[in-house]
């Protein structure tokens, strides 16, 4: 389990760094998100905002105890997402997703999406750092 967590961390860092090197987003992602706080969330999309400067989607994740946490995930902007195969209908309320990313430094329910996998197993481009 520990090894798996380590792998996820490295993988997410790798995904974000690939975008981060070019880094022309409107803000620095490491100023908002903590690279030492990776997370992996599985749950249902409860809201999707096809907006600038970032599209955002909200995921309701249920713990084993039944508590529901709503995560606010940042994506790239719609223009970048569109150029990478997205449409405004790519994610819909009710979709099941698996997301990896990093938690915001000062908002424990906000995160940047590093990798998004939809309910069919398809990996979606996500990096907001692009």
């Amino acid at each position, binding site marked *: 389990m520990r090894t798996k967590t380590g792998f996820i961390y490295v993988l997410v860092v790798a995904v974000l760094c690939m975008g981060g090197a070019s880094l022309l987003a409107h803000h620095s992602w490491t*100023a908002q998100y903590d690279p030492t706080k990776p997370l992996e969330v599985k749950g249902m999309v409860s809201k999707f905002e096809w907006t600038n400067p970032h599209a955002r989607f909200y995921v309701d994740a249920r713990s084993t105890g039944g508590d529901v946490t709503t995560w606010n995930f940042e994506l790239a902007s719609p223009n970048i997402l569109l*150029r990478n195969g997205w449409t405004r209908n790519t994610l819909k309320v009710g979709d099941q997703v698996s997301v990896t990313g990093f938690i915001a430094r000062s908002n424990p329910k906000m995160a940047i999406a590093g990798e998004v996998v939809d309910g069919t197993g398809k990996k979606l481009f996500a990096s907001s750092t692009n």
Partner: protein
Amino acid sequence: MYRRLALLAIAGTVVVTTVTIGAQGRQGGRGVALPRRLGGEITAPKIPDAPAPRLPNGKPDMTGAWTGSIAWGNIIPALKPGETVELLPEAKKKMAARLVKEDPAVKCILPTPPRGAGFPWRIVMTPTHAFILYEFWGHYRQVFLDGRGHPPQAEINPTWMGHSIGSWQGDTLVIDTIGFNDLGWLDGRGHPVSEKLHVIERYTRTKLGTMRMEATVDDPGTYAKPFTLQGEAELIPGGELMEYSCSENNQDAPFLEGPADTRGQGNN
């Protein structure tokens, strides 16, 4: 298994990051919107290896959609070889005190040239003007090509992007800009400017698909001596600009933490 995959991920990251940073070192900040770069599903057409097109007056036609900029997150990698940035003492203090959340870009405020455009941009040439249209912020610059000069100093209204006039030096379009306010940042690290800022940009379409760019930053109110930045842009064949209404749902600024010179754009 996981260890092997993790090692592969690290190796991949090192390769990709090294290649990209190498490109930045030569060419300043690169654009982000070339679809094929990001492994997306849309593939841009191949750019023919052909000379730059010409206007009826014989000058190179700069028209087209381009991606790439001189610098966005950090001007230092874009410095012309051998050049340095030397801040005056007061400017050094000003820069050191800046926070990431204060970056005008974070608040969707217009970037001060030569701070580049992260998304594609388009040059439109007319006999009297060059217009540079930016997908980023949906903003534009108008460059007067009709031979006029800058307004007298007393009539200058300081702005984020200044007053630009253009002229040709051989095949190079030279854009001379003054009239800046002192609020702009040259990059995400917070390199400051004063109202004495004078920027001279040189755009040379070296071939159909390539635009070489240089910008000399002369600001005696901020820097001990002028310095020149270099970059390169790539044509996006058939490329179109898209809407980017930055302030629509800007949730980020309150959650950005840290000083700009260590955690601003260009540091990650």
